[in-house]
């Protein structure tokens, strides 16, 4: 047990049960000498005010699914967990907006909205464990980003606790708003380096009346076939909510067949969904095989899919290292990245499960293997992305290896602006120090 006398000072604004001392550190880092569990916004503010004034460092966590995402410090003084700061503040069903506390589990939120036939139009990984605050802070999105956009398209308002304990609101509770700067955007994907998200207001979408996912597998393995099908399908007036390609390794896990597979999702009234399935049927190359999962089968497919990414809450892989890489390229270049993933897996003797959206340009690659193999594979994936004018960032990696690779892949030319924003809001680097790009 470390003897940390200052911890007693926390009891001035927290109950003893809200304070937990930690004896050992998590292998993913981003830990704290002490974890605190605020239950009210005032308590979050009090913790930050205390830390900011007494030179303590604070890390922010939801339920820990993204603990392996960024961060060059093994521990801070205080780990601020929002796990006990959960619940819906206001669901204005007629206005199709919801305000929710940041520690609310994403899946719980969706289940509360479902009886109203409404949903938050995001499909993040591990929805039953990730918190809405973490999803927004890390800007997590899934394949249906094609149809519904990402966090920046759904968030309409935030209450943010600044590092000095001040509460700032951005945006509002209306779906359209250009009053002042669009400050919401600053905090989405900021990895908690600018403030603690306290309450999040989201616009909602109606639940689809019917959904299906068409799985189109390409046994030939020729990405040119996939490309020409994709180009011709995306040029039609069909409206897929996702158009996601799986590499053979991932396809094997999800469908049992180790061949490139496209997952094309449709959500609409039933007639319109079937009509679009027929378009796939009509345009698919002869060699491609097609299967349709409808209704609950489609939902179940996505539930499985949502758990393929590494999860910081789970025990570490026993044999070897697990990593996740997010790659951004221009839409159709996803094909090149997925092809590279197969070649790189071979060269580096690792297993890479990868998927990417041909309509939005984001890929995720999950790498599993020896330390050296994983590091080499991530480096090669990054080079492939950069060659295409894109980027690669490491979304999950044990702390010890994060010190051997640049998680964020260098600084943009306008880094001084990012640094300037951080300095204005958190001059003492009190929160999530070194969690973000360029050591911000």
């Amino acid at each position, binding site marked *: 047990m470390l003897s940390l006398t200052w911890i007693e000072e926390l009891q001035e604004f927290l109950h003893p049960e809200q304070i937990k001392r930690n004896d050992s550190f998590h292998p993913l880092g981003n830990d704290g000498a002490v974890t605190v569990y605020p239950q009210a*916004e005032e308590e979050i*503010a009090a913790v930050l005010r205390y830390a900011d004034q007494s030179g303590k460092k604070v890390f922010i966590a939801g339920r820990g699914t993204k603990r392996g995402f960024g961060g060059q410090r093994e521990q801070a003084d205080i780990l601020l967990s929002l796990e006990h700061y959960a619940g819906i503040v206001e669901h*204005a069903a*007629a*206005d*199709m907006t919801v305000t929710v506390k940041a520690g609310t589990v994403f899946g719980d939120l969706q289940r509360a909205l479902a009886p109203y036939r409404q949903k938050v139009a995001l499909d993040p990984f591990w929805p039953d464990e990730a918190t809405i605050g973490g999803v927004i802070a890390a*800007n997590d999105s899934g394949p249906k980003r094609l149809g519904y*956009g990402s966090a*920046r*398209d759904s968030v309409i308002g935030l209450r943010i606790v600044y590092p000095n*304990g*001040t*509460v*700032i*609101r*951005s945006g*509002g*509770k*209306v779906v*359209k*708003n*250009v*009053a*002042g*700067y*669009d*400050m*919401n*955007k*600053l905090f*989405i*994907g*900021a990895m908690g380096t600018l403030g603690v998200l306290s309450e999040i207001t989201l616009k909602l979408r*109606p639940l689809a009346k019917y959904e299906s996912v068409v799985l189109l597998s390409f046994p030939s393995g020729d990405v040119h076939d996939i490309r020409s099908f994709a180009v011709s399908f*995306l*040029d039609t*007036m069909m*409206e897929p909510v996702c158009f996601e390609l799986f590499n053979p390794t991932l396809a094997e896990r999800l469908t049992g067949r180790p061949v490139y597979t496209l997952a094309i999702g449709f959500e609409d*009234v039933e*007639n*319109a969904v*079937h*009509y*679009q399935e027929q378009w796939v049927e009509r345009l698919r190359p002869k060699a491609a095989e097609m299967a349709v999962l409808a209704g609950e089968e489609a939902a179940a497919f996505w539930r499985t899919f949502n758990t393929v990414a590494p999860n910081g809450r789970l025990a570490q892989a026993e044999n070897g290292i697990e990593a996740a890489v*997010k790659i*951004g*390229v*221009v*839409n*159709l270049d996803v094909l090149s990245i997925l092809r590279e993933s197969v070649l790189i897996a071979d060269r580096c003797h690792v297993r890479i499960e990868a998927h990417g959206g041909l309509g*939005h*340009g*984001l890929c995720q690659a999950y790498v599993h293997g020896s330390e050296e193999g994983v590091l080499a594979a991530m480096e090669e994936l990054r080079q492939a992305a950069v060659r295409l004018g894109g980027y690669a960032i490491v979304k999950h990696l044990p702390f010890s290896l994060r010190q051997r690779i640049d998680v964020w892949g260098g600084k943009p*030319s*306008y880094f001084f*602006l*990012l640094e300037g*924003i951080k300095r*204005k809001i958190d001059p003492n680097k009190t929160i999530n120090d070194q969690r973000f*790009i360029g050591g911000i």
Partner: protein
Amino acid sequence: MRKRSIATNDPHIQALARIVGERAILYRKEDLMAYDCDGFTVHRHLPKAVVFPTSTEQVAAVVRYCHEHDLPFLARGAGTGLSGGAIPLNGEVVISLTRMKRLLHVDLENRRAVVEPGFVNLKLTNSVAHRGYYYAPDPSSQYCCTIGGNVAENAGGAHCLKYGVTTNHILGLEVVLPNGEVIEIGGNGVPDPPGYDLLGLLTGSEGTLGIVTKITVRLLKNPEAKQTVLAYFDEVEDASQTVSDIISAGIVPAALEMMDQTAIEAVEAAAFPVGHPKDIAALLLIEVDGISAGIDEQIDDILAICRRHHVREVKVAQSEEERARWWANRKTGFGAMGAISPDYLVQDGVIPRSRLPEVLREIANISRKYGLRIANIFHAGDGNLHPLVLFDASKPGETERALAAGSECLKACAAVGGSITGEHGVGIEKKEEMRFIFTDEEILAQTAIRDVFNPKNLLNAGKLFPTPGRCVETKMPSTVK
């Protein structure tokens, strides 16, 4: 512009002329008059000069010169802004981007295009229409407003209910910072560039953080089918309730517009009448689009909802020509006020949709209180109201009364948890109204961000934020709700 030499001793004018060329600068009073305001005509001020750069390098050189010599400056597109964002309050050097109007690149396979800031919004759609694509944000001024200006204002439009506003369609920007440095964000349209979301921050910053010189936008494929419904109501409440019920039935219309009786009187007296009955209280213009196999079902639902709320008459457009006439009638609605009033002032409040009936009642009260007619033409689907205050500027005191009535409409929107602007921006017009929705601390949080980009505050100063209070009241965070 005719050839002429610079006839002034002002060294700044001479220096700027050397950067952009003598044919690309205006500095005589008679030439500057056209630049003393934008679409918000209540305030006017002459600029020091207007320059017409043709390249990013020229924009950067002009900005660098202004920065070094402490000359205030601002960027201007087509000047259609409705909140005064391009008015040279401080005698700015106006950087007009109307000669940077090229379409640089179209990549339909990846659904994106790159344009210069002076490129006109509707021209982009026209350039890709033959392949079945379009650019979604459609402000009513789209036939003449520029995409650069749309980025600055985060412009909306009638169809943003389903497709979002400008910020949802911007993939990359090249920006000249207020010190003349050029940066590129999200360059070729790669999503989620690592770092804080500067694309999101810059879009809608009303030209106070930088000058956009190149824009990568998302293009969309035309919907397979489109149906438009026109519904006439005898009671505003019935129209409002129809709006709510359509939304809660899980229908996401592409557009859901409303006009009240005064507005109908104006559009029917103006250039694009369509024969709306003049004695109805409100009309709804509803458009749904998407996969054809699903459209009829949605239209049936909408018609049933209208009937449930005592619609007097409801019809579905029978041809593209009919649909286009209905939209021309709607999109020229603001200008149509000229047919029934010498002057008008348009407001842009936003409210939670469900509060529509009570806020419309409150606006009627404000109209009575100030003795001024107020017409309402608005995006009912997303709660974005446009009260049009009708007045006569030639009558002493009436302009002031109109401004006060407009401001009170915004207060009514703020009071139900809404916003003071949904798409027109704050500009000069609504600076003080920012206090209806933000605390001093929240406003300071925003100006702190401006200072990172624009530390000398030479770029478009005096816009967007209220003049700092003499006595800054600090509200306790716990009282902010």
